[in-house]
């Protein structure tokens, strides 16, 4: 069937095209085998640069791929309309010829009066055009029907989604495999994309590192204290700003909003001075300084939540004779529990990630370092060799609980993050 079809088509092709096809096939085969015989850009004179290109330029893999691509496109073109066939023929020819010219030019610094510097971009452009032309030729029948278009659309869509997914997850994956590799494999070139030998020695090393463990403990204490204080004080303020009428309400709101966008570095030297003045212990001063960003954020989000609660609740409570504070403690606060969880989680993550204050305030007291500072210093301390595997293991240990937390509370976090923005 295919054979008959092929014969029919072949018979329909003009003689000149037949010749062109055979010649092109031969050239493509040449291009295919060319990289195996000689490294492109191979240096004769011993210079590290030939015609402006580093000698290390290796086109082997690409030119092999390209020639396969061109061959496929040539075969495919044969079964398509004459116009697209001609187009792809031209592109493929351009690609192969410029590749061969480039190879010649890098060996003799010039080929047919064109230097490698000009020919390399020409080759890339030609390859790109060939790829596009081939895609059009292959996809042409699909584009003719509605279902074809739809399924094609789906393919593109899922490819896009897959690319986004890989882009988002890849560094995490790289940290994971790096933490599982043994030291000798970590520095091996080229890097392997799968560990050859899985070892947990990095994890055991970092988990027995006293500074890292102390950092974890410090972070836990500082971040949760800052979060709890923010929630407690912030819910008072949020209640007042969200549900009460008083003069000075809107300036107070603007002030809080301005503080959520405050550059923390602008108060750094001042906070340092306050802490020296009050001679606070480092951990307490860290908690206090973290309130600079957790408190305004908490107040802002909780104000929005309190505002959203129905006024009738408040009125009903007042009719029943409850005081403002009774209403707050017994009616409104239980209702805002989900909001408190969300806000607290976000404040906790922000505090857990904080680096500027921690780095600055613990510079004289390493025992109070939080985990970001401890991990960053893990790399700096051993001058001889960076303990990369341990850093990656430590990175995973501090990240995984957070990621799990985020996954569990996914919906709420997204709601909390977007609460301010969408209503704004």
């Amino acid at each position, binding site marked *: 069937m295919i054979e008959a079809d092929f014969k029919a088509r072949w018979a329909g092709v003009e003689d000149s095209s037949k010749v062109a096809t055979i010649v092109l096939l031969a050239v493509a085969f040449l291009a295919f085998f060319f990289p195996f015989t000689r490294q492109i850009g191979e240096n004769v004179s011993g210079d590290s640069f030939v015609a*402006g290109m*580093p*000698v*290390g330029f290796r086109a*082997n*893999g*690409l030119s092999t791929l390209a020639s396969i691509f061109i061959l496929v496109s040539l075969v495919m073109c044969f079964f398509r309309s004459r116009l697209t066939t001609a187009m792809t023929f031209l592109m493929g020819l351009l690609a192969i010829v410029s590749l061969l010219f480039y190879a010649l030019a890098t060996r003799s610094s010039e080929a047919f009066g064109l230097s490698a510097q000009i020919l390399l971009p020409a080759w890339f452009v030609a390859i790109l055009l060939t790829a596009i032309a081939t895609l059009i030729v292959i996809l042409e029948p699909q584009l003719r029907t509605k279902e074809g278009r739809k399924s094609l659309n789906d393919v593109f*869509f899922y490819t896009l*989604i897959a690319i986004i*997914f890989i882009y*988002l*997850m890849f560094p*995490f994956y*790289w940290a994971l495999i790096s933490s599982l590799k043994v030291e000798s494999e970590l520095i*091996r*070139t*080229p*890097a392997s994309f799968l560990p050859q030998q899985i070892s947990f020695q990095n994890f055991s090393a970092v988990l027995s590192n006293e500074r890292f463990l102390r950092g974890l403990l410090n972070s836990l204490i500082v971040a949760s204290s800052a979060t709890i204080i923010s929630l407690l*004080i912030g819910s*008072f*303020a949020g209640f*007042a*700003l969200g549900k*009460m*009428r*008083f003069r000075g309400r809107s300036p107070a709101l*603007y002030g809080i909003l301005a503080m959520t*966008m405050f*550059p923390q*570095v602008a*108060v*750094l*030297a*001042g*906070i*340092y001075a*306050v802490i020296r003045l009050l001679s606070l212990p480092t951990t307490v001063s860290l908690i*206090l*300084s973290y*309130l*600079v960003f957790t*408190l305004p954020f908490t107040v802002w989000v909780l104000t929005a939540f309190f505002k959203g609660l129905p006024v009738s609740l408040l009125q009903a409570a007042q009719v029943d004779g409850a005081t*403002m*504070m009774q209403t707050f403690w017994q009616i409104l606060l239980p209702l805002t529990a989900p909001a408190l969880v969300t806000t607290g989680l976000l404040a906790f993550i922000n505090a857990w*990630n904080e*680096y*500027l204050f921690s780095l*600055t305030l613990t510079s004289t007291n390493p025992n109070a370092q939080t985990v970001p500072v401890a991990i960053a210093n893990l790399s700096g301390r051993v001058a001889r060799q960076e303990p990369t595997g341990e*850093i990656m293991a430590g*990175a995973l240990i*501090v990240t995984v609980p*957070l*990621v799990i*937390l*985020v996954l569990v509370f996914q919906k709420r976090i997204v709601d909390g*993050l*977007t609460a301010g*923005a*969408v209503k*704004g």
Partner: protein
Amino acid sequence: MAQPAAATQQATAKQTLSELAKAEERTAWWLLLPSIVILVLIAIYPLGQVFVSSFTNARFASDTPTRFVGFDNYRQLLTFRIIGLAPELDDQGRQLVEDGQPAYENSRLKLANLFRSDELTFVNRSYDENGQVVENRERYDSVFTFGWFGSRYVVAAPNAAFVRSVGDTIGFTVITVALETILGMIIALSLSKRFFGRDLMRTAMLVPWAIITVVSGLIWEWMYRSDRSGFFNALINRLGFSDGNTSFLTESALQMPSVIAIDVWKTTPFMALLLLAGLSTIPKELYEAARVDGANQIRQFFSVTVPLLAPTLAVALIFRTLDALRVFDLFQIIFGESRYSMASFAQDTLISNRDVGLSSASSVVIFIIIFAFAIFYIRVLGVDSD
């Protein structure tokens, strides 16, 4: 008799009402008090302190008494000059060409010569123990060079690190926010449809956001390694684009793109989530109506999606811009003291140099720049706080 009684009752009711309102106001301020006390202690007072010490020569652990020095700190930070560079000529008086580019004299050499011949010096005032002014001649350093209408210029400043950090931070902000908005929009539009695996994708989007910035900096630093044990070098070498020894983090032309790529990876998901939430508030009927009217997808995007998403987009832009302007963690982790962001300059001046005055002055400059951006956004985009 009934009338006045009712009136009195009404008056009493009014009185109780206003008393209630007063009580409410009192309660409200009591509730706000703890927040106000804490914020005054850790934000307002320190900000005032920073402002005041930016006009002094205060230092940590220093014997010289602190004194007011006026605008000296600002003068040192913000002074810069633009100096023309002469073309390099050969024996016949033609301009030399290097790598296809016309050659100019070396900017560092030129500045060193100008310093030596006393033509370009910066007089920095300091004070000795007796309060006597000591004038130090300092040299201008090159911040960067640029071409303009066929001539070449060098931007030189006595404190090149700070001037450069301002330029770097603003460039970083503009590029990252632009890329994040475009990528975030693409991701949000893709995820706004219903499809198989959508929940998984939404979850995956939170991963870069949840990773500690310092940790993601370290992970990327590892991927950027300058030999083929690093991911990027292994990849581009395998594809045949280089010899696999590219120093992404030390070559000055690659430093900013490298650090921008990290930030884009880390914060694009955040942008996408904000935009996704905004997209979900757009009623589906509008798209149907547009379709009935014969608008294609592109037309629908510009006539329905963009205008209705504008408020969300504006708020997201503000958040991200102000956030990017105060970037600290990434620059500190990746570059340490070799290249600064505005915030890491202020921190390093405070801790390594113990120069409270200079650090405070740079903090005030940062504050003003961020404030200017905020005002600009509020004016241009008309963002309202409610």
